[in-house]
């Protein structure tokens, strides 16, 4: 019974292994077609360099060839990966395709490869060996899925910038994924060679690369069984067509393509999306408290952020200029200002996403401009984004787990060996994530996909994710946008309680009432410059601030009250429930007569 299908089964296994080499990078969001080149190099060098089966025996000969092939594949991936890892999307695809084509042409013109006529290889691979190899590869990706490394790759795929901000070294992770792809493609190349008896460079051409990619995508590139399902599908379709008696000829590839189209249209996540996806919850979320990895936070009053003459210029437009600012541990600093005042640019510089054009900045000891984003995150900076940058296809819990990247230990290699310590670490990370979800009130929605959450929940999920790294400095970019006043009120309480825990918080908000209520200090930005900085009460009374928000007195004599929130951005919540502080009602007529920035308290550089 099995004998009869041995050939088909072997090709399913081989196709799946090749598809895994695409899966390995697709899961990190990389579109590469270079795997055909890796497989080709591996197949030829493995088959050429490995000792003869007569000298060492069948299995050792195959194993040696596999070892050579996987090393060659991985090495080639490093050499191709180093210069191309900064390329994205279709550009990476083109670059890697160019590599595969170059490999094909070079091998065609080598004497030792036999050129177009190919290199003869003896058949050693059996269906059992092929499936054993497949099982190992599938096991690798299965264990990777729920590890810290696997989650980091998925996070990179979903949103690279957010992944960086969570402290993930994107470059290293992408290269690691690429090298894995190279090694797996190398494995495929060698196994293929030792099954088909003759390999020619054309066996690893553009068509082969596209086929591998299609197999991985049809199967599903987000679930470890995807490549296997894809290969089963691709290999069995011609078999079924033969069995049901479709006449040989053009009609078969036509039907196969049609079927492929149907699958992609109705199952955009690939065949694997038919399988249910489990979401884990921590088994014992209750007893939490003390397994927190913890990092040492600066003592209250220590300088956390020090900006000196910081500026950012975009082609002659000064988004931020000459900002001197110091934030000390334990402060809750609100950053306000009209739209386009440069608030987001400023926090982007502080969190390392945007290099400054002038001035210097030190954040938790890291020098801004020279330090990559993930290092700044590692120093203890965590942030949310003005427009939610969640990992959309991951569950809420997984989003927060990625946030805990910096405070959890790598678990992948230990998971491969089923070490109990890996399980403990994973559980600890899960508990940390569950705690953060609970803190923002999202514990019930842990299993929901991030993209399925309501807008307000997404904002809260971002905060939970940012909290998961146990940051010293938390930067919130308009966290209350889109929240109603009840939610905004709760958010305000949350921020206050975080500050009590010793976090330093910098947040941008248009809901001025909320800022005045929550912050210990408010910094006002207009046209890229700090126009006021001080306690909430002072700011609310500052005529310069009022002018910045309402325009000059002549333009608008009937201005609203800053503190009452009527002057706030229309997207901000209603001011109800925010008790107006003391100095609320400012006479707008007085504003025009006062000098502008004198009242601003600035820290000297």
């Amino acid at each position, binding site marked *: *019974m099995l*004998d*009869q*299908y*041995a*050939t*088909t089964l072997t*090709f399913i296994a*081989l196709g799946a292994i090749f598809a895994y080499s695409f899966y390995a990078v697709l899961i990190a969001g990389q579109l590469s077609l270079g795997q055909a080149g890796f497989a080709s190099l591996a197949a030829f060098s493995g088959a050429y360099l490995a000792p003869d089966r007569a000298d060492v025996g069948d299995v050792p000969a195959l194993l040696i060839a596999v070892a050579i092939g996987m090393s060659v594949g991985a090495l080639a991936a490093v050499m191709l990966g180093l210069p191309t890892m900064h390329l994205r999307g279709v550009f990476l695809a083109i670059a890697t395709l160019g590599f595969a084509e170059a490999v094909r*042409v070079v091998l*065609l*013109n080598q004497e030792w490869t036999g*050129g*177009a*006529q*190919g290199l*003869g290889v003896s*058949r050693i691979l059996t269906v059992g060996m092929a499936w054993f190899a497949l099982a190992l590869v599938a096991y690798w990706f299965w264990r990777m899925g729920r590890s810290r490394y696997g989650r980091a790759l998925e996070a990179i795929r979903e949103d690279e910038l957010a992944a960086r901000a969570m402290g993930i070294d994107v470059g290293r992770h992408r290269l690691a994924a690429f090298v894995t792809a190279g090694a797996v493609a190398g494995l495929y190349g060698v196994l293929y060679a030792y099954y*088909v*008896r*003759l390999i*020619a*460079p*054309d*066996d690893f051409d553009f068509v082969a690369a596209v086929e591998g990619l299609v197999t991985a995508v049809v199967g599903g590139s987000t679930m470890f069984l995807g490549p296997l399902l894809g290969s089963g599908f691709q290999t*069995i379709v*011609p*078999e*079924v067509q*033969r*069995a*049901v008696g479709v006449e*040989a*000829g*053009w009609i*078969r*590839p036509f039907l196969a393509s049609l079927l492929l189209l149907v699958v992609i249209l*109705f*199952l955009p996540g690939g*065949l694997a999306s*038919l399988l249910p996806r489990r979401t884990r919850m921590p088994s014992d979320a209750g007893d939490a408290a003390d397994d927190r990895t913890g990092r040492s936070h600066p003592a209250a009053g220590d300088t956390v952020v020090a900006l000196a003459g910081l500026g950012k210029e975009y082609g002659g437009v000064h988004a931020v200029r000459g900002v001197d600012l110091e934030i000390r541990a334990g402060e809750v600093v609100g950053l306000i200002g009209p739209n386009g005042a440069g608030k987001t640019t400023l926090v982007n510089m502080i969190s390392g996403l945007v290099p400054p054009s002038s001035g210097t900045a030190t954040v938790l000891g890291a020098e801004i401009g020279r330090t990559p984003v993930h290092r700044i995150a590692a120093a203890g900076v965590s942030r949310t984004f003005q427009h939610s940058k969640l990992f959309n296809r991951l569950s809420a819990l997984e989003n927060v787990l990625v946030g805990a990247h910096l405070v959890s230990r790598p678990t992948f290699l230990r998971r491969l060996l089923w070490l109990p310590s890996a399980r403990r670490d994973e559980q600890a990370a899960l508990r940390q994530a569950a705690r953060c979800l609970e803190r923002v009130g999202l514990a019930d929605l842990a299993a929901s996909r991030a993209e399925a959450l309501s807008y307000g929940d997404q904002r809260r999920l971002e905060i939970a994710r940012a909290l998961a790294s146990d940051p010293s400095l938390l930067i919130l970019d308009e966290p209350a946008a889109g929240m109603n006043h009840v939610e905004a009120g709760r958010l305000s309480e949350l921020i206050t309680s975080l500050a009590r825990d010793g976090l330093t918080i910098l947040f941008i908000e248009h809901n001025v009432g909320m800022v005045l209520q929550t912050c210990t200090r408010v910094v006002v930005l207009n046209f890229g410059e700090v126009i006021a900085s001080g306690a909430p009460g002072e700011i609310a009374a500052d005529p310069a601030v009022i002018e910045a928000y309402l325009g000059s007195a002549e333009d608008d004599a009937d201005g609203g009250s800053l503190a009452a929130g009527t002057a706030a951005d229309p997207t901000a919540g209603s001011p109800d429930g925010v008790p107006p502080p003391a100095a609320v009602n400012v006479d707008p007529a007085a504003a025009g007569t006062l000098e502008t920035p004198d009242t601003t308290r600035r820290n000297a550089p």
Partner: protein
Amino acid sequence: MRTKLYTVAAASAAALVLASCSSGDSGGGDSTAASGGLTGEGSGDSCTIEGEVPVGAVLSLTGAAASYGESQQRGLELAAAELAEQDGVTYDLTIEDDQTDPRQAITLFDEFVNDGASLVIGPTLSNAAVQADPIAQEAGVPVLGISNTAAGVTEIGDYIFRDSLTEQAVIPQTIEAATEQFGLENVVVMYSNDDAFTESGYEAFAAALEEQGVEISETITFSKSDTDFRALLTQAQESDPDAIVVSALIEAAVPLVTQARELGIDVPIIGGNGFNNPRLMADAGEAAEGVVVGAAWNSSSDNPENQAFLEAYEAEYGAQPDQFAAQAYTGLKLVDQAVRANCSAERDSIQEALGQIENVPTVLGEFSIDENRDADHPAVVQVVENGSFAVLE
């Protein structure tokens, strides 16, 4: 939606299981039924075999080599139709498509071997033959290659035969005849080095030229997908050769010949097996005049088998056959010859009878299988004259 998809998936999985079971059953059934009735009585024309003789053919009907596979399919089907009219032995010819994919060729050989085929014809390409033929060899199923020209294919084992002359058999005759005709002293050789067929053709040309003492002043390579040869031809022109020797598939041959004439290169162009195609005259027109082509099949031969074949093919398909069709047609006729010789379609019996084929009149001329199980029949050196192939004399 989700439940619907589950249902669809489950249904297709069930269909798949059923389909694979039924194919398995029929496969087993065939071989048992066949083994009962594959030996008959009488010999030659009077041989009568009760059961249907299962013959599998693996051709590249789609993919890169589809143009050859289609010709072969026509040749086989024409021969099968003619054999069906003869009494005594009936053939169950199954033509399958390997999609020019070695994995498919291997799978199909495996299936034909398991399903009890008496003999397998094909596959179209030599590379696929090296990969798939060992399966039949190990199972003791005779294989008849009808287009494999690369060296070494029949060395796979004693069950592997072919009726296609190798490049090594045709090309030396071509070069010898051309050298005599045109007094060649130095030539430029051009070939596509990314195709197994044309590369082995080049090797044969190079060896033959050396044997004839003709100097190769330059060797130029190109890709089988190239269509613009002007720069290469200008380069060839510079060494002022007596002839240009080309090993290329017909897709490259047509533009190459046309562009050479456009550039005013009027020295003879000598082509290999790839040129032996009616499209050369049809597509290159005037430019094809004077092109010398070595071939396994003389399309203008007036032997009665060939005349009958040309007529029947023209009547059936309304087009001129090419060498691939002729070799395929001959192949199935040879299989019939071998089955009738021992009046048995058992695998071993066919294998033995194929090895003893000698001086059989065929479309390709007097045909024998030599001791290496390769084809042995006269090759022909043709020259294009007035829009058709004529024998170079």
